């Protein structure tokens, strides 16, 4: 089956800093989503992005399907951005999750 990798596994930022999270997938996928699991355990859908670039406030995402990767950009990070960021690749009729990037934003 498909392998989904994320880097870095852990990231510590000072409030206001920018960051880039990466998601690599080993096979062609139908689509890709980014999620944020907040400290309360909720999974929040950030982007649904099969290709190209999307932006939502301080967050943006780019997927280059031909090269099998996606990037999540966080600008001017805030403490509320802390949590685990997952990418999930739509493969077949299912979504396969990466292991996540744990982000800690310090005040």
């Amino acid at each position, binding site marked *: 089956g498909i392998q989904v990798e994320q880097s870095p596994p852990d990231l510590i930022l000072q409030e206001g800093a920018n960051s880039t999270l990466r998601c690599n997938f080993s096979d062609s996928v139908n689509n890709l989503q980014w999620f944020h699991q907040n400290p309360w*355990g909720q999974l929040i859908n950030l982007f649904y992005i099969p290709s190209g670039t999307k932006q939502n406030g301080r967050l943006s995402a780019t997927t280059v399907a031909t090269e099998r990767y996606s990037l999540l950009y966080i600008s001017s990070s805030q403490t509320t951005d802390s949590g685990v960021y997952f990418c999930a690749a739509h493969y077949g009729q299912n*979504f*396969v*999750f990466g*292991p996540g990037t744990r982000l800690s934003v310090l005040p």
Partner: protein
Amino acid sequence: EAGVTQFPSHSVIEKGQTVTLRCDPISGHDNLYWYRRVMGKEIKFLLHFVKESKQDESGMPNNRFLAERTGGTYSTLKVQPAELEDSGVYFCASSRTSSYNSPLHFGNGTRLTVT
């Protein structure tokens, strides 16, 4: 529209007991998925319903887990008897179709603790 709803939000049970988790998908979503995150590890697929039929249950860990979706609306996931390693967060998700252009919408999860 109302989102995916899961109940309970938390459950603490003793080893050997039974627990039933419930998921109400977004109205009109034929596809319902169960995932879980155990011990802070990866989010793993458990199974996929299309309406009331099990499309894929390859992720179910063993026969202590039973999922149903009678009538193609809400779904239940029963763990009987529960073991310590079943502790984790169980997520339900729904999508309108199973095609690639139909995003997943997740519920808030049920945090299960087996003591």
